[in-house]
């Protein structure tokens, strides 16, 4: 009879996740016990404090490199760096979520269950304060993301995937205005997301089957898989099929083509702060997980997966760039741009080297800051019916509000990869890493699609500055303190990482080593 031994837990290493999940649970209690009036302030304060505490916790264990909880959680450089990134970007999104001065009652619906278009609905749209359950929901999603990037085995990763996905599906449905669009987006996201999760789980099962067939003991932790992949005697069929299915699940979350079809609809329908949150944080989490799976577990199969995922990367860049050209809605345009950026990130991932890892992480940070700032501007351009997202409505914005047009122009130039912005340094980093690793064709595809992608960005700039303001050009709302803060952080970071990338580059390259 064996003694059941409790696995050793490194509580300090787990602290960031424990704090975030704790705050999420506390948020539910706040919903239950705090009076309706005070909830918004309490939830927002609690959430931001929790995120700051989690960031401090990450910083405290910055040098820790170990596997804990019986190998279920890896506390290593990439995990901690990406956790820190998610927390910072999530805090910026929280500022947008908490903004209530732009729309009467905030960007969220008061009660999601009210029938769309009914009398009650019209009342809530005009004056009811938005529901505050978004805060604990977002907090759970953040917790899931933190676990996602530090999972040490595939089952933990799957649980984390679900923990981060389910709240996101709900959050997408909670827009105050254009609720049908929002609910449709949520349903679409949920249906496709469920498929993707199923693929992932099936992949886990196949990989388990593969490891059982090799010399070592079966298992789904990355150390076991790594050893099994190195075992030349094993049949590669299960391995390749399993890896393909795992990749589908992860690439879906990363919004890579051909698994990107949900992206434009969901980005457009979701409340803009949630779109910002997804574009920044979900992308970090998805690529964090993808990096870990490919670099830690399946490094031995790099020869097999590189051409396939390379093709996915090229397709992603191409689809994102080409379809962005035809968009007339700013949120959809940014969605396709986000697809194309997933392609550039894949270029970095496929470098397969330490430089590839560090440059991908650098790209994630740079893109996250810019994209949150971009969506912050989108929340500001509004008319009495809410945000004015159709591009024709942005004509002549530069005349009406030169400051915001200039800020948005700067962000767009960053997306287009003009030097002295983070968009350039991050592209340089991933392309450099890929070229160094011999992936010339990926870099060429990246450069060609960058040319295509510059056009839609430039079109928006032309709209804002060079077109005459029309009758319907909306005013830009004066941002509340929260949106202003998020916007400012994003823009300053975009500039700083473009002009002085060295500190972050040092950080990413020192963090760029996984533990096995």
């Amino acid at each position, binding site marked *: 009879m064996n003694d059941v031994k409790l696995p050793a837990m490194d509580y300090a290493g787990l602290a960031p996740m424990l704090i975030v999940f704790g705050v999420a649970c506390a948020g539910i209690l706040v919903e239950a016990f705090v009076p309706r009036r005070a909830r918004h302030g309490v939830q927002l304060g609690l959430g931001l404090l929790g995120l700051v505490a989690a960031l401090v916790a990450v910083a405290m264990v910055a040098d820790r490199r170990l596997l804990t909880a019986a190998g279920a959680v890896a506390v290593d450089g990439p995990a901690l760096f990406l956790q820190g990134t998610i927390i910072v970007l999530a805090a910026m999104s929280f500022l947008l979520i908490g903004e209530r001065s732009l729309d009467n009652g905030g960007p969220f619906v008061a009660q999601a269950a009210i029938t769309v278009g009914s009398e009650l609905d019209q009342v809530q749209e005009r004056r009811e304060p938005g529901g505050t359950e978004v805060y604990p929901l977002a907090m759970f999603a953040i917790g899931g993301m933190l676990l996602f990037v530090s999972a040490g085995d595939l089952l933990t990763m799957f649980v984390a995937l679900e923990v981060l996905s389910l709240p996101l599906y709900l959050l997408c449905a909670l827009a105050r205005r254009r609720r049908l669009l929002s609910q449709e987006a949520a349903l679409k996201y949920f249906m496709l997301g469920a498929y993707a999760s199923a693929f992932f789980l099936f992949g886990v099962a196949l990989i388990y089957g593969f490891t059982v067939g090799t010399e070592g003991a079966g298992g789904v932790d990355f150390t076991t898989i790594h050893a099994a992949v190195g075992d030349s005697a094993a049949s590669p069929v299960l391995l390749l099929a399993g890896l393909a299915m795992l990749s589908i699940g992860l690439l879906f979350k990363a919004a890579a083509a051909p698994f990107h079809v949900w992206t434009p609809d969901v980005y457009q329908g979701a409340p803009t702060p949630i779109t910002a949150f997804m574009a920044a944080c979900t992308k970090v989490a998805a690529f964090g997980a993808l990096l870990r799976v490919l670099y830690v577990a399946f490094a031995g199969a790099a020869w097999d997966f590189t051409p396939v995922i390379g093709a996915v990367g090229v397709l992603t860049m191409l689809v994102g760039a080409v379809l962005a050209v035809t968009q007339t809605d700013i949120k959809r345009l940014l969605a396709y741009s986000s697809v194309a950026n997933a392609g550039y990130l894949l270029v970095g991932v496929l470098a397969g080297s330490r430089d590839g890892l560090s440059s991908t992480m650098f790209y994630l940070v740079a893109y996250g800051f810019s994209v949150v700032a971009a969506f912050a501007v989108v929340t500001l351009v509004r008319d009495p019916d809410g945000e004015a997202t159709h591009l024709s409505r942005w004509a002549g914005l530069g005349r009406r509000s030169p400051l915001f047009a200039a800020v948005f122009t700067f962000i767009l*130039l960053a997306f287009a990869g003009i*030097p002295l912005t983070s968009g350039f340094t991050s592209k340089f980093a991933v392309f*450099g890493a890929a070229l*160094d690793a011999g992936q010339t064709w990926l870099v060429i595809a990246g450069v060609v699609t960058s040319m295509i992608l*510059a056009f839609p960005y430039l079109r928006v700039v032309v709209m804002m500055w*060079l077109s005459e303001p029309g009758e319907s050009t909306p005013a830009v709302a004066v941002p509340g303190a929260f949106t202003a803060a998020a916007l400012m952080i994003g823009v300053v970071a975009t500039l700083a990482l473009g002009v002085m990338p060295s500190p972050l580059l040092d950080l990413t390259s020192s963090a760029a080593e996984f533990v096995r």
Partner: protein
Amino acid sequence: MSDFPFLSVLTVAPLVGAVVVAFLPRSRPQLAKVVALGWSLAVLALSVVMWVAFEVRGDRLQFRESYPWIPDWGVRLTFAADGIALVMLMLIAVLVPLVILASWHEAESSKRSVPVYFALLLVLESTMIGVFAAADVFLFYVFFEVMLVPMYFLIGSYGGHQRQYAAVKFFLYSLVGGLFMLAAVIGLWVVGGKTFDWVALTNADIPTETARWLFLGFFVAFAIKAPFFPFHTWLPDAGGAAPAGAAALLVGVLDKVGTFGILRYCLPLFPEASRWFAPWALALAVIGIIYAALLAVGQNDLKRLVSYTSIAHFGFIGIGIFAFTTQGGTGAVLYMLNHGLATGLLFLVVGMFVARRRSALVSDFGGAGKLVPLLAGVLLFAALASLALPGTAPFVSEFLVLIGTFTVNKPVAVIATVGMILAAAYALWMVQRATQGKLNPALPAMESMRRDLTARERVVVAPLIALLIVLGFYPKPVTDVINPAVQATMQDVGTSDPAPTVGNVVEAAK
């Protein structure tokens, strides 16, 4: 004095000036103009000091400064100038104050902020100086790309008819070239040992095949920028739509980045590839000379016409460079300077005509010389300089280019000479149709058309005319600066001049 950080100060100073000008109150446009003018004159003064401090017999790269920037990638803020860059820097420093003075009333007609217009001009000056002063490939690329932004807004916000289309076309063409170059820059960085230092990279050992691809990446970017046939279609649109001052800078200086880039980066970094591609480059250049000249003959829009003449002139610069002789190279660099002066003058004068007539169409003028004789005279002089009349500076450079080419490649030189005849056709015909012949009855009715050169405009054109004449008779101060740099470049390429030697030609040109 040579320890003074000339190049970084010259790069940063206009930028500071731009910030100052941009924040001047919109209600006081006069103040913004005066500050901008004063600032650019200060830059000019500093450039003159730098010219004097440059040692003709000194090192190839002088005024070298280097500061760490992104150590992780081996990027440094390295500035250094050889004779070629020095000449271009002087051209910028001379042209910008004149353009500011010539654009005195340009921005007022556009309903947009006047201080911002002058701030953009200063930003443009800063990036142009940076691109010529950079001695770090990464830094060069940064300036090369950032330079697009102020020019984009100058064309797009303050331009004339079809300005949006022209601005976007300009930006996209240049960006496409820039991205090709980015791929090549990264490739160079990888094969060159993770450094961007120009000197280190010229000594790097790059495999032949790779070098050819990298050459192509750089060359496409520069050929779009210059522009060479068949990448030229953006220039007539941009030149036609840009405000006259910006157009003078666009064609006079900005496009020279292309030919400068070929001389400074393509040739020394990839000598073997340069020789390998030279026939193709020569072919493009020769086609450009003839094709653009023919198109120029047929233009009715003055600004577009001048733009097409420039494409033809860039063809001459191209053959001068790819002839790989010292005469050809020196002629090409001298051509870059003289073309900047002559075409700059031509654009500014055309701008004066357009401002009076509110139209750039040749057919809207006719006999204008009877109303504004002085202005018409300046147009004639600018046109003659542009067709390389002996006695004006462009003659010297065109002659050097043709001699340098003739010694090594007779067919190219002969075909290019046909371009000179076409140049006479388009230039003289333009002058004739616009200022001679029967007076267009619509002209005297316009009050503005009866006003000849104002004092401000005289101050604008006088220095350029003087420079064109002086350098036409006595180019030695400039050729002395250019020659060593060109010789070094040709040594990098690994070609030697056939006899007779350079000295004789320069003597003859004197």
